[in-house]
Structure formats: structure tokens, C-alpha cells
């Protein structure tokens, strides 16, 4: 085991460029994935995250830069030579083969001895509870079972890196939650390096050891789920993560860190800027709904416009003039529409962004 300080990049992308049909999808991208890490690529559809994963798998040719896996340059290697296992959104099981044959296909091609194949399949089947399904065809399986088989097929390869391309997106909500948990357990038990593409922020938050937020082929932020959630690097990341989304309030910031907008004034003395010299006059204040606390004698107040009950909590939408705010109420109080709701702001957890560049101050 390596100590934490000298963790080497296990998958390393340098200056990567990808073109599809003459269009630059990804340009000059650098990314290092550490060994044993569960790295999630998160972004809206069309941001290039799947393209990036497919290029790591070798299914898309790269136009520039290099890809290294476990210290070997695989920039132009065949997909089968990259020591990867991959799980696809559509499961991509071989429909004419049984579950067992599906899992052993790659091993048989590579001439792995029969006994070894048997051993690996038995182990993986036990891990994923597939023992009773080994002789079935994919058509006889449910969606969740199919995806478990697909995961199993990747696992028996005992690859260096596992790639997941939105593996849970085709499943219904309940199964998705279940399989998400299984995946997390699997990663905990195996400790293998995993790269996971999704547009679902809940999946990203729950699974990732680090999240890469992408937009239009560019990395917006790279950090642990907490970092990305608590200290978003820019307005895009702030707005993309979190449901309901972060409240944005445009306003001015003076030199002693007093924020003022038309409807709300706020002192932020303890705010730690991302860089020391960071300052802007026109700013956007970002506050998550859960950081607005309802208080009977709170400093601020807004007019209740809408209530969304969620069962264990409810969302309150307030109007402060033209400014709309969303806040979370965990106590499911009874409110009447049009009432004034008083609240306080947890200033220590607020974010400030430059209104022009969108970057975090």
C-alpha cells in the first residue's frame, strides 16, 4: 500500500483533444485519476463526459495528447489491450449467449484456462448474486439483473480500471437506488479504480470519492463531493449541483465585505475568498435552500408564494419583491400562502461569485 502522500496518477490524461466529425468536442484536457479512486464525471448531456470515457476505453480515437493507464501509454492501443472493463447504459449484453457465456466471452478470447474462468465467474456471481441466473439468456432477465450481469462481465476481466457509462440511467428509480448502493459497496470491497459517467447529481454525490464537473468539454471543478457542493468554483457548478438549486441573488459588494441587493443586506465578515486578491463590485450571492433557517423573529422576511411538500420536508418558495428564494423546512410547519415568512441566513456557508466572470470569489 502506498501512503496517501505519494498517490500516483493511475489514469492520466494529458493535453487531450478529441474531434468528432471535424468538431472539437474536447480540447486540451488534463485529468489525473488516483489508484483506487471512484471518480465521477458529472455534467449535463452533451458536455463531452461520455466521449471522454469512450476515448479512455479506446472506442474513440483521440486527436491530440496522451492517455496513460497504470504507467503505460495507451493513447492509440486497442480497447482490449488497455486493461479496462466497461459497463454501458444499454447493458450491451450479448443476446444469444447465456449469462455465463456473456461473462466468459472475453476470457475465452484471451485464452484464460477453463478452471480459472470457472473460478472467476463463481466469485463474481457470488458477489453480485447471479448464481441462479448463470444459465439464463439476457432476455429472461429483469433490467436490474441485466445491469448486474453487465457489471459482472466487467469484473471478471479483473481489469486495472473500470469504466461506467451511465449504468443506472435505464433503470427505474427504486432499482437505481438499490444498485447505486451495491456499486458503492462493491467499490469499498474491491478498492479498484473506477471512472463513472453520469448526469445524475445524486449518483455523483453518493458514489464519488472525487467529482469532475464538466461543461462543454471543459472541466469546471474537480474535488470531493463536499468541496464541490460547499465551495462551488463557479456559477455553473453552483447551479448544477443541489436540488432544489442554490438561490442566486445579484448585488454589490463593498470593500469590507458587505453585500447589498435591492431586497437584502448582509455582512459577510468571515467569508474566505478563493484567492486573496479576489474582489468585484458586481457579485452574485449564492445560498443553498437548507442554509436559510426559518425563525419567528428572523432578520429577513419574504412572502410565501408556493409550497412543495416532499414528505420528510417541504420546499417553501418566497418572494422578496422580484427576488425569488427557495428554502427548506424540515418541520413541515403549516403556512398560509401570502404569509410573511421570517428567516435567517447562515452567512458562513454562503458563496460569492463575480457577476461578470461567474467565478467564485
Amino acid at each position, binding site marked *: 500500500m502506498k501512503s496517501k502522500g505519494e498517490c500516483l496518477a493511475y489514469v492520466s490524461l494529458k493535453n487531450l483533444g478529441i474531434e468528432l466529425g471535424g468538431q472539437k468536442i474536447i480540447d486540451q484536457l488534463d485529468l489525473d485519476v488516483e489508484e483506487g479512486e471512484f471518480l465521477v464525471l458529472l455534467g449535463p448531456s452533451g458536455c463531452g463526459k461520455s466521449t471522454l470515457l*469512450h476515448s479512455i*476505453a*479506446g*472506442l474513440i480515437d483521440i486527436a491530440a495528447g496522451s492517455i496513460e493507464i497504470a504507467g503505460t501509454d495507451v493513447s492509440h492501443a*486497442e*480497447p*482490449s489491450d488497455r486493461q*479496462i*472493463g*466497461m459497463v*454501458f*447504459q*444499454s447493458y*450491451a*449484453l*450479448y*443476446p*444469444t449467449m447465456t449469462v455465463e457465456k456473456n461473462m466468459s*466471452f*472475453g476470457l475465452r*478470447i*484471451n485464452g484464460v484456462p477453463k478452471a480459472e474462468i470457472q473460478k472467476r465467474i463463481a466469485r463474481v456471481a457470488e458477489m453480485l448474486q447471479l448464481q441462479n441466473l448463470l444459465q439464463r439468456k439476457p432476455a429472461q432477465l429483469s433490467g436490474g439483473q441485466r445491469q448486474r450481469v453487465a457489471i459482472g*462481465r466487467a469484473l471478471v*476481466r479483473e481489469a486495472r480500471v473500470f469504466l461506467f*457509462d451511465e449504468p443506472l440511467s435505464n433503470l427505474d428509480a427504486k432499482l437505481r437506488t438499490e444498485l447505486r448502493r451495491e456499486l458503492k459497496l462493491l467499490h469499498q470491497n474491491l478498492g479498484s479504480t473506477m471512472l463513472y459517467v453520469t448526469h445524475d447529481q445524486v449518483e455523483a454525490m453518493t458514489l464519488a470519492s472525487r467529482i469532475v464537473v464538466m461543461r462543454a468539454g471543459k472541466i469546471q471543478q474537480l474535488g470531493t463531493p463536499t468541496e464541490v457542493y460547499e465551495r462551488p468554483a463557479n456559477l455553473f457548478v453552483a447551479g448544477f449541483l443541489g436540488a432544489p438549486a442554490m438561490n442566486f441573488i445579484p448585488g454589490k459588494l463593498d470593500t469590507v465585505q458587505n453585500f447589498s441587493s435591492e431586497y437584502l443586506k448582509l455582512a459577510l465578515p468571515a467569508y474566505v475568498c478563493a484567492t486573496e486578491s479576489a474582489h468585484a463590485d458586481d457579485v452574485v450571492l449564492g445560498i443553498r435552500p437548507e442554509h436559510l433557517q426559518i425563525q419567528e423573529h428572523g432578520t429577513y422576511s419574504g412572502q410565501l408564494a408556493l409550497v412543495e411538500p416532499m414528505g420528510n420536508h417541504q420546499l417553501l418558495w418566497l418572494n422578496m419583491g422580484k427576488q425569488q428564494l427557495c428554502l427548506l423546512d424540515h418541520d413541515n410547519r403549516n403556512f398560509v400562502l401570502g404569509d410573511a415568512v421570517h428567516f435567517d441566513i447562515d452567512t458562513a456557508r454562503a458563496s460569492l461569485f463575480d457577476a461578470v466572470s461567474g467565478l467564485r470569489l
Partner: protein
Amino acid sequence: MLKTRRKWTPARLGIYAFLLTAAAFFLLPLYIMLVTSFKSMDEIRLGNIFALPMHITMEPWRQAWSTACTGVACEGISGGFWNSVAITLPSTVLAIFLGALNGYALTFWRPRGAQILLGILLAGAFIPVQVMMFPLVRVLATLNIFSTLPGIVVVHVIFGMPIMTLLFRNYYLGIPQELFHAARIDGGGFFRIFVQLMLPMSLPMIVVAAIMQVTGVWNDYILGLVFAGREHLPMTAQLNNVINTTTGTRMYNVNMAATILTALLPLAIYFISGRWFVRGIAAGAVKG
């Protein structure tokens, strides 16, 4: 759901009247051929072509199969039948295999210029056979396979290639690319993915392609006549000889029996696999 009850409206009656007339129109020749083939020549001379045979005789069928004269020889069209089998079998298997291979390569491996290649193939489907006849004769003669069994098989495979390729390409377009990607990661090469993964998945399309190719090759006349040579004349060419060889009276009953024998295989295929055949026409809609 409410079950809507079909009412006998005038429009519906009209449709049925039309369909029944159309069916009768197409079935009448077959009916006449069938009844005539079981009549003796004496009975035919009475002239009641719609009448059922008074005394059923199998003699015309026996003659057509084994003693009717096809030119100089008088051995019936049984020889032609086996010739046609010998031509159709390899022509179908080879054309399907190569067509599937082409479709697979064009869909999944997307070689440079795949689109242009496909365009050329499509154009090939529209060029009349007659245009290519003479050049092909020269080519086959140069290769020393003109007027041989391999010669006629090669010709059929060539002419079947555009439609077979398009058929399989359209089928493979419906298979998710991810499946191919998964096989690539598993280490499958060009032929292994084709043989172990794609071909087994193509079974429905293989059936359709086989129906189209078998009926096409079996019914062919002009290519067989030109390229097969005397030794391997297909059944259709033999049938023509039977009917055109007149020594004395024209044996209508024998001619009818020989014609039905020749048409038997495609007919059987249409009847047995009507469902598949319709699907094939729909899939091969490019050809029209």
C-alpha cells in the same frame, strides 16, 4: 378497451368483392394448370378447360419429371431440378455470408469511404442485368469458369450482393453500437465478433435473405441460360426446352405438370414462410 364490432357497410362489402375478384384472377391460372395436368390428352381435347378431370392420371407428371424431351435428350426436367439445387444452394449460402459480412463491416467498422461504397452498391442494385452480361462473359471466360457451375454461382453471388448487403446493413443499424463496443473491449477481432456475435443474432434476417435469394436464383432464367453451360442448365431453362420442343402433338398436360414442378419450390417457400417473406420485403424496402 371497447371491442369495436365490424359492421357490414357497403364500403366493406365493396372491399371484399374487390379482394375476392383479385384473388380469383390470380388463382385461376393455377387452377387451370392443376386440373389440366391431371387430365389425359383425350380429355383436354374436349376443350372444357375449367372442368375437373374425369379420370385423374399421374402419367403427365411422370413424363414431365423423367421422359419429356428437353431438346435432343428425353430425360424430363429432373436433371434441371438437381442442376437448380446445385446452383441455388451455394449461391444462397455464399451471398448471405458475404452480404452479412459487408453489412457488418459497413455498419460497425465504418471504413474510410463507407458511405461512397454503400452508394455504389445501391446503384448496383438498379443497373439492369443485361448491361453487365457481355463484360461478365468476358471476365468469366478469362477466369476459365464460363459455362461451369462455379461460374454461374459467382454470377448469382455478384448480382445478389447489393440487396444482401443493404438488407444486413439495415438490420445491423438497429443493433446498439454499445454491443459492438463491449465485444471490442472483450478483445473480439473483426471475424470473431462477426461469427460469434453478429451472425447468431442475425438469424431472423438470414431467414429473410435466404427466402429472397433462393426464390430469386431459382426463378432466374437469363443468367442460367447464358452462364451455366449445357451441363448445368437450371430447371427454368429446361422447362422452356420442354415446352418448345414439339414433335407431333403439343402435350399440354405434360407442359402444365413440368411448369408446376418448376414453380413448386418458390411456391412452397411463399406458402410456408409468407410471414417472413413480407417482413423481408419491408426490410428490403430500399429496393422497392
